[in-house]
């Protein structure tokens, strides 16, 4: 690790003057140092920031090397010891404690050495001294059963019947015996299936109800989970929950065995008054610790004595929410006997995220050093660019690459980078500086054409430089020459962004332009479907109305007063209507092109116009369009010709641009690209299923190619009422770097906001056009595969007709030679694009990675989120060519191999029954499971073919943050934190058992937003949120909260707004009432649970993974 690097940066930046002049002189060749700062103003700005930075490098003392392997052990030990005694109890405890362990490190180390974010993990472990030595997440799986005991959890969990449970609880302990005998071979699926129904059956425990509950509650179907034991936060009562259930289950009594699970001991309550609600929610354990984290830590000792908690005697007091679940009664006894893992014991994404936030969110991430693992995407952090690209631009699956391909093969950890070249930065971070190397263009390596970057080595007194990628030596062009200082560094090092920063831009010369002509400013063309459906749904009117004002907000560059972008309008049904909106006309003119078989652009002058010049004509046009087609009876539409038309228009105008297509139906009119309805559910789970993802015809592919060649990006807004074949329609947007937005069964009243908001964002966002991206790497690795929405005409260049700040490209690297630990590995991503003002630019991102000869280093520097991003994209592409099952199996086996390799090579020896996960990858199973049960890979009955194709394409260009939340949704309880608190409430795990029926939750996954209202939520809450007196009067399916002047309402709405602001697409809110029919939809996103479509629950899947790993190991 180059320790030198980080240190100096601060200084030069601190002295703007000299540096500045230096820059100037070297630059413009102007001798006078007195030049005003204006030209470089932008660069100056951030300086203060830089100044503050000095420290970063230094404290990084604790090198990871010294630290123990970063893995967490879900420790059997304690549990094991207890094991004999407590049987199950141990198991559960163990895990739960481990979870805390992980947490602990985070918080603790920070206190002492907050500065060194890099190393925090290892450091974190130190406090734990003894146990963590092998910081591994070991889940005691032996008993857990790979066999899918998972089924039971839900049922087991929450459904405590108080009275019986008591009894059973005790029984449970006897269960330990059972434990031993736990059948490993139980078929998980079956049990799952059974468990479910059982769980849903109504509950009936008259006594219970009578005692604690309002009758309404009785109706609640699934209170069980909610009713979960209100666990004392600290006591770790949590685990018992399951335990008790378990315990209870064994006794094959017909009685609902799991009584309102180990009811929370009343005392607990008292101790945590604030958490009353929480208690209701049965997630005691997980939840407890989080709120008062620090406090939890004290719990560490508990850790040592895990056995304690499990015992919690059967609930003495009934949790108000723990409705007796009648279903339980009906459950076949044997199911209840199933043995289970405590869900709290297994690695929790929430916990990991929370830890990372706490540990790394406070300090800026300084990119000076090679191979640093950045904070998680869920963490808010600032980035200081000191030579490597910000993680906002590039994230890698691993920041430490095996030196040899053998190692890489062994580990099976894919080496991939997720690149978001035009990512939007928070306002605190400066956008990349633009560097102008004059007429000769950017300085590049002669051989590999890599661009000048901080890693280039200047030699011979600065007359030449050696390429860090290919080692070729290149003359420094005379105008670029600069002397070196005593360290071999150029004197103007800090004045030149390309020498000191990881990300920057070059102004491209004419050589970098198409046809050797500087591009013209781009154009936006709005192409509106005006067929019957579009008109009737009110879309056309809405859109036209919106465009009138929206056109004032076209993206503009820098401080430009007016956008350089010109606009054009086309409407279409079976034929196309172009509009002449030339400013000199009194009225717009419409030109109909019916020759859809051979599309062309009927006009040139007047089609693409400057908004401000032609405003009156445009307004008049937008006024008239809805009128003109108000009586249309045309239901057929064309599609491909529309794109062709837009492309031809851009071609004629000789500019790049973007088409905004607003389309409603399957294009069945006679024309090229005509489609037929081929939606066939019978194909699911057959070898032919892949055809549903493939385009119907090759026509669109070649069309896309033409579009890319023209720099024509296509954004598609779909408003289907039925099947429209997204897989085919999406081909062109996909390959041109465009976006697809889909609004099924569009209704102006309910979908207006979402559509308009998406539209506004889409129109206003900054876009680069006609882009080519190339990823260069240092010798030894090579970019071999690319995932994302783009087109490739050769194996190296990623071509994007349009690229915005949301689009991400995932690149996979493979070895083609040995790497050396000394030099590490370098990645340079160069993106040539045309800015929205028509300026041709090159954006360069550089990233240096470490190389390792020890597998442990690899596992210690991995990023699971990125890994999942890669795996998901890989799988989603796989479904195009292979049956879904094959894809799923491949995913599982790859992950199993990754984990097995770790276990084999890096983990400390332990019993085979232990599942040991690398600290960095402990979430891999849960996330992987989410990917596996996503709609694409395992569709439920209600998921349409179009939805799958849509999601498939969306995911393909998602960045890490988006995939993260997409696969593992955020679930926030809204009423657990005092209304006054401004912080986001701590998330809970996406499982039904975590929901308390007395609470209100917000769930989002980047595309959907749900507000789940528990059946027994307090009336006050209902009143303040919905302005109705009772739960039953809440309108299910509501898509907006009434604006009410009370803290809770305001807070919830603020929260919703902030969620929306974080995502690139507007999420429509859906209010779901517990036990309402909409709840099915909601439950689909509770990804830790078994899904209706057959997806495994987290626990089950973990068991399955364990089995796989064990198989590999043996």
């Amino acid at each position, binding site marked *: 690790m180059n320790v030198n690097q980080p240190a100096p940066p601060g200084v030069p930046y601190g002295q703007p003057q000299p540096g500045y002049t230096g820059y100037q002189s070297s630059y413009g060749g102007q001798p006078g140092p007195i030049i005003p700062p204006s030209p470089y103003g932008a660069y100056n700005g951030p300086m203060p920031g830089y100044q503050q930075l000095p420290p970063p490098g230094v404290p990084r003392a604790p090198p990871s090397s010294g630290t123990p392997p970063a893995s967490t052990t879900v420790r059997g030990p304690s549990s094991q010891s207890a094991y004999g005694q407590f049987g199950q109890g141990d198991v559960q405890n163990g895990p739960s404690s481990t979870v805390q362990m992980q947490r602990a490190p985070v918080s603790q180390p920070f206190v002492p050495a907050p500065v060194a974010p890099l190393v925090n993990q290892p450091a974190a472990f130190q406090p734990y001294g003894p146990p963590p030595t092998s910081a591994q997440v070991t889940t005691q799986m032996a008993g857990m059963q790979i066999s899918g005991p998972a089924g039971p959890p839900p049922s087991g969990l929450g459904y405590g019947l108080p009275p019986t449970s008591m009894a059973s609880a005790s029984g449970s302990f006897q269960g330990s015996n059972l434990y031993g005998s736990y059948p490993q071979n139980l078929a998980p699926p079956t049990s799952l299936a059974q468990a479910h129904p059982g769980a849903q059956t109504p509950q009936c425990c008259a006594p219970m109800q009578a005692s604690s509950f309002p009758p309404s509650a009785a109706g609640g179907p699934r209170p069980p989970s909610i009713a979960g034991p209100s666990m004392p936060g600290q006591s770790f009562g949590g685990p018992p929950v399951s335990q008790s259930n378990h315990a209870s289950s064994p006794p094959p009594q017909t009685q609902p065995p799991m009584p309102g699970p180990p009811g929370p001991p009343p005392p607990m309550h008292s101790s945590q008054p604030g958490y009353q609600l929480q208690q209701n929610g049965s997630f005691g354990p997980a939840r407890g610790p989080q709120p008062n984290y620090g406090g939890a830590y004290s719990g560490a000792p508990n850790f040592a004595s895990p056995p304690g908690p499990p015992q919690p005697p059967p609930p003495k007091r009934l949790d108000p929410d723990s409705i007796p679940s009648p279903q339980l009664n009906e459950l076949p006894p044997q199911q209840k006997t199933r043995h289970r893992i405590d869900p709290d014991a297994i690695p929790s994404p929430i916990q990991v995220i929370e830890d990372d936030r706490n540990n790394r969110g406070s300090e800026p991430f300084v990119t000076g050093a090679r191979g640093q693992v950045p904070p998680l995407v869920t963490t808010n952090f600032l980035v200081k660019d000191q030579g490597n690209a910000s993680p906002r631009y590039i994230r890698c699956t691993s920041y430490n690459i095996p030196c040899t391909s053998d190692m890489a093969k062994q580990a099976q950890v894919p080496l991939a980078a997720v690149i978001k070249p035009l990512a939007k930065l928070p306002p605190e971070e400066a956008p990349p500086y633009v560097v102008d190397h004059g007429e000769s263009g950017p300085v590049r390596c002669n051989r590999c054409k890599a661009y000048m970057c901080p890693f280039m080595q200047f030699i011979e007194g600065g007359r030449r430089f050696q390429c860090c990628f290919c080692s070729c030596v290149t003359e420094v062009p005379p105008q670029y020459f600069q002397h070196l200082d005593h360290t071999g560094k150029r004197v103007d090092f800090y004045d030149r962004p390309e020498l000191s920063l990881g990300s920057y831009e070059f102004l491209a010369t004419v050589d970098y332009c198409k046809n050797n002509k500087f591009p013209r400013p781009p154009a936006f063309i709005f192409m509106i479907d005006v067929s019957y459906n579009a008109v009737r749904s009110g879309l056309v009117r809405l859109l036209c109305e919106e465009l009138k004002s929206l056109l004032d907000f076209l993206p503009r560059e820098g401080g430009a007063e007016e956008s350089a972008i010109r606009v054009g309008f086309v409407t279409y049904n079976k034929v196309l209507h172009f509009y002449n909106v030339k400013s000199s006309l009194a009225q717009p003119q*419409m*030109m109909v*092109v*019916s*020759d859809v078989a051979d599309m062309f652009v009927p006009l040139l002058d007047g089609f693409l116009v400057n908004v401000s010049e032609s405003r009156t004509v445009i307004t008049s046009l937008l006024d008239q369009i809805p009128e003109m087609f108000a009586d249309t009876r045309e239901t057929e539409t064309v599609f491909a010709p529309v794109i062709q038309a837009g492309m031809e228009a851009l071609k004629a105008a000789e500019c790049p641009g973007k088409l905004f297509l607003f389309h409603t139906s399957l294009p069945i009119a006679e024309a090229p690209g005509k489609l037929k309805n081929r939606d066939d559910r019978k194909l699911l789970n057959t070898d032919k299923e892949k055809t549903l993802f493939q385009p119907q015809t090759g026509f669109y592919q070649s069309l896309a190619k033409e579009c890319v060649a023209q720099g024509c990006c296509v954004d598609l807004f779909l408003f289907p009422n039925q099947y429209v074949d997204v897989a085919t329609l999406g081909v062109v947007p996909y390959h041109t770097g465009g976006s697809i937005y889909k609004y099924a069964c569009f209704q102006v009243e309910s979908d207006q906001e979402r559509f308009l908001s998406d539209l506004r964002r889409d129109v206003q966002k900054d876009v680069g056009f006609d882009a080519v991206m190339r990823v260069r790497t240092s010798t030894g690795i090579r970019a071999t595969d690319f995932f994302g929405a783009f087109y490739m005409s050769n194996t190296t260049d990623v071509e994007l007709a349009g690229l915005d700040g949301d689009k991400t490209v995932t690149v996979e690297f493979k070895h083609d030679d040995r790497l050396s630990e000394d030099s590490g590995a370098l990645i340079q991503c160069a993106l040539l694009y045309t800015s929205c003002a028509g300026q041709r630019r090159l954006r360069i991102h550089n990233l240096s990675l470490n190389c390792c000869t020890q597998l442990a280093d690899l596992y210690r520097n991995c990023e699971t989120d990125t890994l999942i991003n890669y795996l998901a994209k890989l799988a989603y592409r796989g479904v195009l060519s292979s049956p879904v099952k094959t894809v799923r199996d491949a995913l599982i086996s790859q992950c199993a191999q990754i984990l097995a390799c770790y276990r084999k090579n890096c983990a400390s020896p332990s019993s085979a029954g232990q599942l040991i996960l690398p600290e960095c990858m402990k979430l891999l199973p849960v996330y992987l499971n989410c990917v596996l049960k996503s709609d694409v890979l395992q569709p439920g009955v209600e998921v349409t073919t179009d939805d799958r194709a849509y999601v498939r394409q969306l995911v393909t260009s998602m960045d890490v943050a988006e995939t993260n939340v997409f696969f593992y949704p955020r679930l926030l309880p809204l009423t657990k934190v005092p209304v006054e608190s401004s912080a986001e409430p701590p998330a809970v795990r996406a499982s039904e058992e975590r929901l308390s029926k007395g609470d209100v939750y917000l769930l989002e996954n980047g595309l959907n937003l749900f507000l789940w209202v528990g059946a027994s939520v307090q009336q006050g809450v209902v009143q303040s949120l919905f302005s109705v007196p009772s739960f039953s009067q809440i309108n299910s399916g509501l898509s907006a909260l009434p604006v009410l002047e009370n803290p809770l309402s305001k807070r919830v709405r603020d929260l919703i707004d902030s969620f929306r602001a974080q995502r690139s697409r507007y999420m429509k809110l859906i209010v779901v009432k517990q036990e309402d029919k909409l709840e099915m939809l909601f439950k689909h996103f509770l990804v830790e649970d078994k899904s209706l479509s057959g997806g495994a629950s987290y626990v089950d899947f973990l068991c399955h993974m364990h089995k796989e790993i064990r198989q590999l190991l043996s």
Partner: protein
Amino acid sequence: MATYLEFIQQNEEQDGVRFSWNVWPSSRLEATRMVVPLACLLTPLKERPDLPPVQYEPVLCSRPTCKAVLNPLCQVDYRAKLWACNFCFQRNQFPPAYAGISEVNQPAELMPQFSTIEYIVQRGPQTPLIFLYVVDTCLEEEDLQALKESLQMSLSLLPPDALVGLITFGRMVQVHELSCEGISKSYVFRGTKDLTAKQIQDMLGLTKPAMSAQQARSVQPQGQPFISSRFLQPVHKIDMNLTDLLGELQRDPWPVTQGKRPLRSTGVALSIAVGLLEGTFPNTGARIMLFTGGPPTQGPGMVVGDELKVPIRSWHDIEKDNARFMKKATKHYEMLANRTATNGHCIDIYACALDQTGLLEMKCCANLTGGHMVMGDSFNTSLFKQTFQRVFSRDFNGDFRMAFGATLDVKTSRELKISGAIGPCISLNVKGPCVSENEYGISGTSQWKICSLDPTSTLAIYFEVVNQHNAPIPQGGRGAIQFVTQYQHSSTQRRIRVTTVARNWADAQNQLQHIEAAFDQEAAAVLMARLGVFRAESEEGPDVLRWLDRQLIRLCQKFGQYNKEDPNSFRLSDSFSLYPQFMFHLRRSPFLQVFNNSPDESSYYRHHFARQDLTQSLIMIQPILYSYSFHGPPEPVLLDSSSILADRILLMDTFFQIVIYLGETIAQWRKAGYQDMPEYENFKHLLQAPLDDAQDILQTRFPMPRYINTEHGGSQARFLLSKVNPSQTHNNLYAWGQESGAPILTDDVSLQVFMDHLKKLAVSSAS
């Protein structure tokens, strides 16, 4: 009866018919020896202010193959109420309406003065006239402006209920929808792609799905007008709208780079116009009026590429087979013309450009459909403006001088058969018994379709005498021909005009002098000229000239009086005396000579020659020259270089040009400004006289001639010099210095030389 001259004139006035022979040789053999075929020039709709149409249906012969119309030549049995067809001798009952018929109570059609009679019949729905403007927008700003004004003006000339449509073209073709309010709407087509009529109708949304068609019908009883109403609207409804639309018409916006011609999709534009009308208004009167300012440069029908460095084809290129696009383009336009003609529509071509515009290729559009062809230098000239205005001129009744969708049916008595016709028509391929195998012009049929005609449209119709020599016709026998023209009058009425003529038979062996005396040399010249021009379209120029010469020599041999081998003894009778001169000028005319003419010009001249009436045709063959001087009143003078004198003003009318030529002295006088001096007012009057006369001609002529006012030594004097008989050239210098006209710099033979040769050949026994 007075002279044959009077007879001929009277016949022409009454029936619009002029025969080459007014006494017919009675046998086939003799007829062929007459050299000039038995033929006539028929002006079917000759204006007859004295002929009120009758308001009933004609009575037809009941024989299905005959169907001749009852006429004054028929024998009528008033008692039996029967009439005998004079063509097939079928005896027919009069219809019940004629029950009251008697010798003293005759229907009009039986009266001799009604040898030509017009019936108005009520048949089918009356559809208004349709005018579809097809406008080129690849024009200079000035031209376009002028054209727009002309078009706007024309709206006021149209009958208010006429339907109008507008198609504009340049690189693309735009069909404008006229019905819409607010936004102006047009359908645009690629200019490079030919489309079938069906495709065009589909793309214009003219073919409605069955359901909505039903709905349409329920709303409006007549389906068709409703469907097409978007593109063709009654003038009175969209007058303002269309005026605005035309006003906003812009030049073709596509950039034309240096060294290129604008891309002009004339072929497709016409194709769409044809397709539009074909689908919506088949078989009703419609004019497609094409206004073009240059050659088609792309798509089907392209005549020349867009590279300016490659010039448009010349006769030279065509002879060398170097005209790349000609054949294909011609084929395209022929296909269009035939389709148009089949549908009974017509295409006018108004081509205004300095260079050629592809009339050669497009000529068939006008030729086959009876449309007008107008060629000018610019739309911003009075030539175009007035010509265009004259298209909408009205007759004494206030009706437009245009008729549509006519079919001409010719019936002959048994001794005659029909060889063919030459004129703005197409064959209807009706092969009746009276169709000859001997073919002239558009042949093999007894019916032709003339999609558009005006009162001067004239067809040449050729006959063959088929009576055998050994079956003599009884003395006093007459041959009869009936022309039945059914057409749509401009008032949208269907009318039928029937002309029945008869001529005496004569035995050429013993009554040759009768036949000779009844020779109409003017008609004969025009008829032969039409044959010649018709041949010239498909044959090499020299072959046609040789053929004409041979015919002339044979004629002279047959009818001249001479001693063998003695040219000086050669004499022609009065009725033949002018004929050789006509032939001389015809040989020099642009109809047969392509030298100095572009292919477009040739096509243009031939187009008009093939449709004008006899008088105009003769002017075209042999221009008229008037002289104005102080020596006396204006007088016609010889079309000869000797007529060009210094103290004369000459007025020449070649039909296409009106040339006023001031002699040298006159020009000097004018230059000196004598005309402005009160004492020389007579000079002023002299100068004014030809101008006034020229105005008279200009007022009536269609198309408006090119008006040239020049003087001795003026560059435009070439128009005169090229026409006159070069009796004095640089070769016979003896004339120099004499006050006897102007020498012409040419190697062409003069009339004198021509006649000398003719005599020599005629008297020669070698042939």
